[in-house]
């Protein structure tokens, strides 16, 4: 097959690829996949591709580790973050197809998609280079990628596709691979679940959301709800949301509609002659978004129709007129009053929005700090076990009981912590030692001393300032 023959040449172009990718975008996020892929799917065909993937992967720095790991279904969304991805994914699908012939498990296909992208890219660098990075960026921001991504029928003149075709310039050059892509796309997407475009947010946002929706393996209930988000490859892979897409018999997972996806939808609807004439099936076909089921389209179309109908009715009818008149006469003065009232309302709303954002950020950081401290705690526990310092425990008896209420996680690592990190509250160590027997209760990371926060969670200065002002 064509793709296979490419590989030998790709090997040498691996570095070139890396360079290209680094210049293009955040291709580094791809680096995560190989590891889970390797772990999870040892039965992958031991072909050239796999070994080459490993080589290439070693060169990459993982930025969006978890997000990529979790989103093997979110391949489409990765485009939105990195222009390099878009073309990569295109090619990955082609490579994927090769691998698919070996009947590798679905996940591995998806993961190999990304991994093999690197290999595919150089070979098809012609296509890649023909399109300027700016195009890709534009495409990525367009976010139609996220849904349709590569798995287009290139020959199709669908609205969404045409954009991508033109901008990527692949249509003309990809004739030979069209059928291949299609097949692979179908195969991939038949199993894979396109993560809803909500992933854009997750991918763009750095920690902690980078971790992606690592759906807890225990929490099966939440699985179908999470927009077909594929769970992290590294874990929880037992909850593959993909089956829900293929057989459709499970409870319909929700699709997270983004503006871009919606635009694609609107285009498709307009092509079919408007919201009244368009049928869900037709729209679904035209959109060609993998992972989108007819249920999604149906419900969305219904909402769309309702939204359109109301304003149209109000424009023609006099309902809004009368309500406006009730609030104010057609007098200009009252018109100003209305505007003022609206402005006032707007101010309040803006304030609430601001505060909510701030609050949310704080919450995120608090939790992150908690996690960090928990990590440290566990590390210290292990260290202290290894060190086996019974002398430290002897000093525990003298501590005052009043400190129990602090229930700090650092209680247990008071002494070891002090020894390893001398700048952290040395005066608190003897207070903490008595908490050894209360380990279980001290999971809550409630560091009683703001100084700890400074030293340990250095990324939270504002939070610390606020806290210290209150303590």
């Amino acid at each position: 097959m064509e793709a296979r023959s490419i590989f030998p040449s790709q090997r040498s172009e691996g570095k070139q690829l890396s360079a290209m990718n680094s210049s293009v975008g955040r291709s580094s996020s791809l680096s995560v996949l190989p590891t889970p892929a390797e772990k999870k799917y040892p039965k992958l065909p031991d072909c050239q591709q796999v070994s080459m993937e490993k080589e290439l992967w070693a060169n990459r720095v993982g930025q969006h580790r978890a997000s990529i790991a979790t989103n093997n279904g979110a391949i489409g969304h990765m485009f939105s973050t990195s222009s390099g991805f878009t073309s990569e994914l295109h090619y990955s699908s082609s490579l994927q197809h090769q691998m698919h012939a070996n009947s590798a498990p679905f996940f591995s296909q998806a993961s190999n998609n990304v991994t093999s992208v690197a290999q595919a890219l150089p070979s098809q660098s012609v296509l890649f280079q023909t399109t300027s990075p700016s195009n890709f960026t534009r495409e990525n921001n367009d976010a139609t990628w996220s849904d349709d991504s590569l798995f287009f029928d290139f020959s199709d003149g669908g609205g969404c596709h045409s954009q991508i075709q033109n901008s990527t310039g692949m249509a003309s050059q990809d004739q030979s691979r069209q059928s291949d892509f299609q097949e692979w796309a179908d195969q991939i997407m038949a199993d894979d679940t396109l993560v809803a475009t909500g992933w854009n947010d997750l991918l763009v946002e750095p920690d902690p959301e980078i971790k992606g929706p690592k759906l807890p393996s225990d929490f099966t209930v939440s699985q179908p709800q999470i927009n077909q988000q594929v769970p992290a490859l590294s874990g929880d892979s037992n909850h593959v949301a993909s089956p829900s897409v293929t057989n459709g018999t499970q409870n319909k997972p929700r699709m997270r509609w983004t503006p871009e996806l919606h635009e694609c939808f609107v285009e498709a609807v307009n092509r079919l002659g408007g919201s009244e004439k368009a049928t869900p099936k037709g729209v679904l076909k035209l959109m060609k978004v993998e992972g989108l089921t007819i249920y999604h389209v149906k419900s969305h179309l219904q909402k769309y129709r309702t939204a359109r109908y109301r304003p149209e009715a109000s424009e023609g009818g006099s309902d809004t007129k009368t309500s406006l008149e009730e609030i104010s006469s057609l007098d200009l003065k009252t018109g100003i009053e209305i505007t003022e009232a609206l402005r006032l309302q707007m101010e309040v709303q803006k304030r609430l929005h601001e505060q909510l954002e701030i609050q949310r950020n704080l919450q995120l950081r608090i939790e992150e700090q908690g996690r960090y401290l928990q990590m440290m705690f566990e590390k210290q526990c292990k260290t202290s076990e290894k060190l086996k310092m019974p002398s430290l425990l002897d000093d525990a008896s003298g501590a005052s009981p009043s400190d129990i209420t602090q229930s700090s996680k650092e209680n247990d690592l008071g002494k070891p912590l002090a020894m390893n990190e001398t700048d952290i509250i040395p005066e608190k160590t003897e207070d903490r030692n008595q908490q050894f027997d209360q380990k279980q209760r001290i999971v809550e990371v409630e560091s009683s001393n703001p100084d700890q926060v400074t030293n340990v969670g250095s990324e939270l200065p504002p939070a610390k300032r606020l806290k210290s002002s209150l303590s």
Partner: protein
Amino acid sequence: MKFGKRLKRQIEETLPEWRDKFVSYKDLKKRVRLICTTLEEEANSNGPASSGCASTRVSEEEEEFIFLLNAEIEKFNAFFMEQEEEFVIRQKELQERIQNVTATLGPNGRRMSESEYKEEMGKLRKEMVNFHGEMVLLENYSSLNYTGIAKILKKYDKRTGGLLRLPFIQKVLQQPFFTTDLLSNLIKECESTMQTVFPTEMQERTEKTVDIAAIEDSIFRNTLAALVTMREMRRGSSTYSHFSLPPLNLAEPPDQSDTFTLLSPIPIQ
């Protein structure tokens, strides 16, 4: 306890169709209490020999509890995403309408007269403000539910000595209902388009001749209620810890919002 009451009040103020979508704080709290009592009873009645079955009981209880929490989260996610979807649709529609109106074209394509233009703009403004308000309220919904879940988890850990909170909250943080970036973007876009819709000559604050005392618009009322609730919640509590949020620092004096009398909920047309 206080949070429960505040939550209840907020729910009452909120839009009717949202009422049952909030976190069932009271029920979950009861549940937590029940769990503890069963554990204690077990320990007391059977003595040390029951430690084996008690631990299994604990894990059972915990699983059930986790199941409940997941159900709640599912509820949030479903509602949130549905609302999000509708907002996406509405935003597009509003944008189209604004384009039409600013081009001074009526729905039929003909040029609009002066009064028609004014009328359309008026309608648009009102709709945009309401749209913005609803989005912010959805954000508030997300925040409130998150707080509720966090509190419940904290109670659970406190009562049972379990270690559920930290890992669970990490998962919650990544749920769709809490990842409100899309919503934030929509709101920002809305705010920026506002600039075009609102006449520039009115930028300076004129005398507030509006009758503030009788705000009947339910979105506005809900927003105010949300702000008030938020401020109260962050005033400081008895169980203040480093997981708590600092007090809310609203620049404007609270008097202004207090002057707004909150009438009974009126459904949005």
